[in-house]
């Protein structure tokens, strides 16, 4: 996208990778996201002009940070209003830090955690939190985020602008919360990251590759978090869970775009290196405190990933882990998954009874999973007509083409006479 004939790929590659760090650094320094964004863009432009001639600097991030900071300081000097505003904002900041000399070889601090906690602040609504996180931490463009969440670009642009304005105007701090508040605030951050992951994961098999990118972005964000908070069980657990889940991606959809259920997946397609890393992280997460539901979910995924087939899965272990998970987070979804585990462990009759006991949970019966699980248990009990009906209901409620195709095929199979 640079001037004709100038190879800009290296600059853009660096920028994409370091965008979050650069913005975080500038936002933490100046307390102003707008200014941070503008001078970061100017620094990129300067890099596009300079690097092809002078070569990519040894420390590209340091170069970009220094350039952006100089541009910001220039602006502040020129613009008295901006200077006053920043002085007000930074009344409590350490003046020595602001005055420190700018050199190209200084240690570059990683301020992304601060920026992430600001983007996932409870004063912002969840849509704004996910949007801002993808924009500023993952470095996606507004158009990319809009496409990933299937909303018009103008809607997403407005959402981001409002969110950014709220950070600015209501002075949401760029700060990692103190120990008394950290647990609750970290839950919000992890929730946002997990939402980004599931949004992308649910869309696997869509023609739209960008939505699958959300999976990679969520993993990348969690890796960053894990690097910055290595002792935090919930972060380790979430990273393990995402890796162990995404390891099955190649087998989740067949060549015709139809979803493949866990029991029918070709397990030789699963990504063994991701499974190994995920299993290692699971062990680590389970040894960290306090126990977190993410770690237990990761442990369940690890049992599945390490089993040679659905039948040879240690269902007793899965069921015990779901008991533990239900103790930590007693939600209808966990109850549903526990019922499925029971149907494998004790048999379809026991599982079906557990499923029927959840029939009064509208949050479950409104979605296809509960109906599909019922269909599965009924089919195993050879109650074909009832199974067909349950699968048909599930197919009506499913959202993605791959799932609809799979569930409709099931319904047809059991509806067939004889």
């Amino acid at each position, binding site marked *: 996208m640079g001037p004709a004939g100038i190879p800009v790929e290296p600059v853009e590659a660096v920028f994409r990778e370091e965008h979050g760090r650069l913005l975080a650094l500038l936002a933490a320094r100046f307390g102003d996201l707008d200014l941070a964004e503008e001078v970061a863009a100017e620094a990129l432009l300067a890099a596009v002009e300079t690097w092809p001639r002078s070569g990519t600097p040894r420390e590209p991030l340091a170069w970009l940070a220094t350039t952006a900071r100089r541009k910001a300081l220039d602006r502040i000097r020129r613009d008295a209003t901006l200077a006053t505003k920043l002085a007000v904002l930074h009344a409590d900041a350490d003046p020595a830090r602001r005055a420190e000399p700018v050199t190209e070889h200084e240690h570059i601090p990683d301020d992304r955690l601060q920026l992430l906690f600001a983007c996932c602040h409870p004063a912002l609504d969840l849509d704004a939190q996910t949007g801002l996180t993808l924009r500023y931490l993952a470095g996606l463009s507004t158009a990319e985020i809009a496409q990933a969440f299937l909303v018009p670009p103008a809607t997403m642009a407005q959402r981001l602008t409002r969110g950014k304005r709220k950070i600015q*105007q*209501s002075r*949401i701090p760029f*700060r990692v*919360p103190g120990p008394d508040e950290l647990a609750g605030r970290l839950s919000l951050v992890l929730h946002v990251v997990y939402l980004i992951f599931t949004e992308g994961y649910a869309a696997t098999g869509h023609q739209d590759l960008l939505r699958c990118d959300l999976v990679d972005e969520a993993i990348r964000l969690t890796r960053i978090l894990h690097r910055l908070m290595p002792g935090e069980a919930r972060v380790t657990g979430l990273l393990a869970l995402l890796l162990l889940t995404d390891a099955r991606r190649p087998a989740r959809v067949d060549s015709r775009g139809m979803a493949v259920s866990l029991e029918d997946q070709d397990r030789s397609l699963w990504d063994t290196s991701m499974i190994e890393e995920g299993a290692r992280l699971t062990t680590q997460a389970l040894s960290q405190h306090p126990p977190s539901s993410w770690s237990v979910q990761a442990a369940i995924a690890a049992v599945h990933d390490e089993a040679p087939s659905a039948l040879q899965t240690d269902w007793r272990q899965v069921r015990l882990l779901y008991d533990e998970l239900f103790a930590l987070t007693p939600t209808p979804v966990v109850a549903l998954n526990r019922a499925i585990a029971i149907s494998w462990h004790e048999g379809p009759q026991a599982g079906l009874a557990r499923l029927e006991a959840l029939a009064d949970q509208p949050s479950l019966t409104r979605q296809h999973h509960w109906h599909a699980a019922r269909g599965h248990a009924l089919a195993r009990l050879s109650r074909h007509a009832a199974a067909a009906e349950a699968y048909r209901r599930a197919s009506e409620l499913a959202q993605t083409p791959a799932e609809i195709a799979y569930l409709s095929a099931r319904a047809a199979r059991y509806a067939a006479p004889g």
Partner: protein
Amino acid sequence: MLLIMGFREGEGMPQPPSSGAPSAEEFMKYQQELRQAGVHVDAGLLQSFEDATQVQVNDAGERLVTNGPFAESREYLGGYQIIDVPDLDAARDWAARCPGAKYGRVEVRPLAEF
């Protein structure tokens, strides 16, 4: 930051032990804490919304005076605090300590800079 104390009609406010409003002592204590922390700028309690009067000036410069609060508001503002704090998290902490937060709710609004 402006902390606006108020409550919504029909909202299930936790019933305080004795009366339906925070006691004067509670507010005095809160005011004292704000002053001691050096964040107090201004504060005020409002009379009942039934005593509100609205004033508008039209294009012709005529004054239009009507009885009652803004709109048919079902939210009643009871008072305000203006505090000088560095960021939203600090403001939120003070809002949570405000006696009004126990009986109704406290809205945190940044003041615009001129």
